[in-house]
């Protein structure tokens, strides 16, 4: 088990080194390490590229991935569904609709407002789904069905705006929707950390509740769990985590679905181990995907969400292939 953790950390460190060293201006690994350590003999240009440009982007990528990984693991436990992901709670659809409205319809918005507005859109959508699914309690199936329905409606609204909006504004909105780490400044990193770290830790502290609620309402209730309270709290943590990730980087697809599955393969289903492993796996996925997105068609920088989606589709196939005997 310790080997698994060390391997995860090693892969993450390697991906981080790659992300800091590779680019239009390659910086050799020794200079990367020197710049990180604050050594004197590193050329100022290399220091500027590593710590000023690439480091905030890499840290943002890791945080987004970790938040989505944990949110996905929580969603899969609470929904009792291996295909559950934070998007089912309406987070992506709510954020996307708000982003479309703000970028296309409202025209110019103060740059700092967009993350707040999309974060609010994500949470509002999640709350609406919860309210509509509530009938003297919740059930995961009702949440999933209503989540799919409301997300489709929000998607239709976003498409409507995209169809009739001004082309250049729509293009900017689409770039945001595809998931992008272009806005990687330390301020973005700090805001994401402020919004996501606490819910992530709370979810981890409640790992035992997640273990039990995954057995289903009847069993959990029979053992004395207040199922609606736990599901509500965990869904809120999930919404905060993934809403913060969406606000920071747009819709980064499939990480919330794939990272928990990979983590489960590595450390098993107990959430005390699964959540940190999903955080590490998600961080590695987004960091690696962004590296590919930056280097695949230089000088063009592809949206990271495009890369994760390209990686995610084969992953679905892999899931099906694994279940071929069932």
């Amino acid at each position, binding site marked *: 088990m310790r080997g698994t953790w060390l391997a995860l950390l090693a892969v993450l460190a390697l991906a981080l080194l790659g992300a800091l060293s590779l680019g239009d201006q390659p910086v050799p690994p020794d200079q990367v390490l020197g710049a990180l350590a604050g050594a004197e003999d590193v050329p100022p240009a290399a220091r500027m590229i590593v710590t000023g440009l690439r480091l905030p982007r890499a840290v943002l990528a890791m945080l987004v991935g970790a938040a989505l990984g944990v949110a996905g693991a929580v969603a899969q436990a609470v929904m*009792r569904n*291996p295909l559950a992901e934070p998007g089912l709670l309406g987070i992506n659809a709510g954020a996307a609709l708000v982003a479309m409205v703000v970028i296309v319809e409202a025209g110019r918005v103060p740059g700092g407002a967009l993350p707040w507005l999309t974060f609010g859109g994500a949470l509002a959508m999640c709350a609406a789904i919860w309210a509509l699914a509530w009938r003297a309690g919740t059930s995961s199936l009702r949440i999933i069905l209503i989540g799919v329905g409301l997300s489709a409606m929000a998607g239709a609204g976003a498409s409507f705006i995209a169809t009739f909006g001004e082309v250049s504004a729509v293009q900017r909105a689409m770039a945001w929707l595809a998931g992008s780490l272009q806005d990687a400044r330390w301020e973005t990193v700090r805001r994401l950390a402020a919004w996501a770290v606490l819910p992530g830790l709370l979810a981890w*502290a409640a790992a*035992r509740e997640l*273990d*039990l609620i*995954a*057995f*289903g309402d*009847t*069993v959990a*209730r*029979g*053992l*004395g*769990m*207040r199922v609606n309270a736990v599901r509500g709290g965990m869904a809120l943590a999930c919404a905060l985590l993934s809403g913060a990730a969406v606000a920071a980087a747009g819709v980064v697809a499939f990480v919330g679905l794939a990272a928990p599955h990979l983590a*489960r393969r590595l450390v*098993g*289903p*107990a959430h005390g181990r699964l959540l940190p492993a999903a955080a590490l796996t998600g961080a590695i996925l987004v960091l690696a995907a962004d590296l590919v997105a930056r280097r695949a068609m230089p000088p063009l920088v592809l949206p990271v969400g495009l890369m994760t989606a390209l990686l995610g589709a084969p992953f679905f196939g892999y899931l099906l292939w694994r279940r071929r005997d069932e």
Partner: protein
Amino acid sequence: MSEPRTGLAARGLTLGYGRGPVVDGLDLAIPPGRFTALLGPNGCGKSTALRGLAGAQRATAGQVLLDGRAIATLGSRELARQLGVLTQSPAAPEGLTVDDLVRQGRYPHRSLFGGWSEADSAALEEAYALTGTGHLRARLLDTLSGGQRQRAWIAMTLAQQGRVLLLDEPTTYLDLAHQIEVLGLMHRLVAEGRATVVAVLHDLNQAARYADHLVMMKAGRIRAEGPPSEVLTPEAVLDVFGVAVTIIPDPECGTPLCIPRAEGAFGR
């Protein structure tokens, strides 16, 4: 009927899913320290009555009392420390071991962030010993046979250490050997004074053999209640199940043995 001071009882308990009551004004005192079997045809409300007794379904009228206190006023963890519930064919998430499952039984005993205690370990070992599943603890649940899996779930319920066990059809889907094993375990738990057992059963003859107290239900109401020798009569079985039977003494233990009459169709 006098108010029982100890044990589990239903008072005018009415339960339903919106379209008329499934259980209608149930008055039932579970004899403490005995094995009670709930019997009746499909849809008679026996499983619903069991869920009501477990506090898993909200009463539309009446209440369930535990030691004279309404269970609706007890905290959910407090209730789970008193009542162990096993639902019909429960499902576990993929990839769990028997130990992962049985440990969940300690959930109501642990504080929010409290660690695993000596008492938890002791309860676990006892549950393994009683069910004979200790050698399976590292096995994945998905790889167990039906009987082994059912025993693992019973071990989880025992690790809960409730005074009352409520089991919904614990023997359904098990082969004969495992049915006997599970019923024998229930009987032993009661005989050793560890628990009061209430189980929904389908086999009248097994119920008569292993249970001390039979409750026969039809259309949401109790039609007959008492020890097997008094309850299991041709009249009661005809009334509740609509089947004509002959009752003879069980050659093994003398309890009533119920044999459907061969009315023409099978005559040779």
